[in-house]
């Protein structure tokens, strides 16, 4: 990514519904968008759907975005909102289905998405967290939202947000190095 700002020519092309410019933008921000969606969702297909929903926000009404502002933060926000909406739906399904945990679909045969092993490992770790912890960890640590914003987005209190983040970190440490975690626990 050469610039945080969207080229004026591309944005103008989006306004004119130029398919070439839409493709250029899609190619540039595919990886960035997908990396966000994969962290929040449980399957690659779901991540792809949300990514496409996010692109459609821009493609169907490019004027929603102010080209004088950096594109990435705006796009991240759009995608995160879409992910949170999807996450809430899943939460409802989980409660309606009697608390059945969603199993991360990381062994997807689709090419490309999880080729980066480091990132793949991170995604697997995040998916291992309980949904409530996962959402807060993603939002606070990886996407830079404040506890106040997270509380509003998820409909929880600021205290719950902080508490969930703390537990998420603890879980992650435990998963990253179980032996050290065991030693620390015994010492206490």
């Amino acid at each position: 990514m050469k610039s945080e700002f969207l080229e004026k020519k591309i944005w103008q092309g989006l306004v004119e519904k130029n398919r070439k410019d839409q493709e250029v933008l899609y190619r540039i921000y595919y990886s960035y968008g997908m990396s966000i969606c994969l962290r929040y969702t449980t399957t690659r297909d779901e991540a792809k759907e949300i990514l496409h929903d996010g692109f459609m926000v821009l493609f169907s009404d490019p004027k929603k975005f102010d080209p004088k502002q950096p594109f990435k933060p705006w796009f991240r926000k759009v995608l995160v909102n879409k992910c949170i909406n999807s996450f809430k739906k899943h939460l409802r399904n989980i409660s309606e289905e009697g608390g059945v945990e969603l199993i991360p679909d990381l062994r997807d045969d689709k090419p490309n998405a999880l080729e980066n092993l480091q990132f793949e490992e991170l995604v697997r770790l995040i998916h291992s967290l309980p949904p409530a912890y996962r959402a807060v960890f993603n939002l606070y640590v990886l996407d830079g939202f404040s506890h106040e914003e997270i509380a509003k987005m998820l409909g929880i209190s600021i205290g719950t947000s902080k508490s969930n983040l703390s537990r998420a970190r603890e879980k992650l440490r435990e998963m990253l190095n179980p032996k050290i975690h065991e030693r620390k626990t015994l010492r206490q």
Partner: protein
Amino acid sequence: MSEKLSDNRDEELDRILREVSDSADIPFSEEDWGEMKSRLDLDSSPAGLGWFATGIAWLGSMGIAISIALLIWNSPEEIKGNTEISSTYEIESIESKNLNQESQNGENSEPISDSIKVSIPQQSLGFSDNTITSEKMEVIFSEKENEFERNADTKIVISENKEGTQANSDEIPKSQNELVFSSKESDLKEVEEPIVMVEAKSDAVEEDFDQVKNKDKKERFGGKFNLSFQLAPDLSGVKLDQFGKAGNMIGIGAEYFVRSRLSISSGVFYSYKPYSANEGYMIGYGKQPNSVFGECDILDIPINLRIYPLEGKVQRAFVGLGLSSYLMLSEYYELEYSGYGANDSYTQELEVKGKNNHFFGVANFSVGYERKLGKTLSIQVEPYFKVPLNGVGEGDISLKSTGLFVGLKYYPSGINIR
């Protein structure tokens, strides 16, 4: 991931994980772009056109439909053929006189008690002005008993008398079962509008005229009750200039005629209404959304009064007015809020099922055109407009709808005498 990582403080852990996340390099998938492209193609299809283009298309369709209806309405088929004359002309005046007086004057040699004179506008018979004013014309309906009612052997004889001889009822052979229509040049001069005179024996004519009336009734439109199957494309929006993606309505209706030209109709219609709006969605408290996209599944139960001001033998038009009850089966909203920064907008999804019902909360306005397809079937087109009296749905929105019902109507009793 090393052991050190787990011992790091929270910030250090966060920083490392953030770096891993930001360093993600997910190779591009042509397959994914293909799917995105298909979605874009779908979005730019006619269904995804803006309200303006959709509106133009609708207006065009309605214009064509109305033009066709008017053409059909004005077609001369109703005055074609001998069997249709009696039911299509307008009887302007009926005058009885005692023919005994005429008999005394020597104008009538037969002892006829009464005669009946019926004036018929010239154009009703489809003759040109030149024909009727320059030539004597006689139209004779001859029939045997009961045949007039059946219309089987009714015949029309048109004779021309270029010599200009004064038409006289005596000149025409008459019997108890014979109706004579005559047009005289002298008669035509006396009235503003040329007329055709009908003279006949009253006993026979009274009976026959009743039969004519019965026949006339028989050929009028429709029965007292009908069932219909209707479907419509439906456009919904909060403001009249915000109609977007088309929804639909489908359902069954029933109609009962309380008067010959007044009916009550009802039914059950399932309706899918997608819409988007920049404002108009109200949440009870707190921050209001900047824009909303909604999709509603609604059961629409209307009760309408219909008045049929125009009615022919095979077609008629009506004006409808009434109220609908909306049972909101499911509502889905995407509410977009502005955030703190210029590009900090965020969305909230809302899904509600079976919570909101609005009994008689929506006003219906419609006009319609119906045309007979057979004895028990007819087709109907009905442009409609629906406007809520109060807000509907979770956001109390003023969700207006318009569309064009196209339906088939079934008259279980066929074409009844009314």
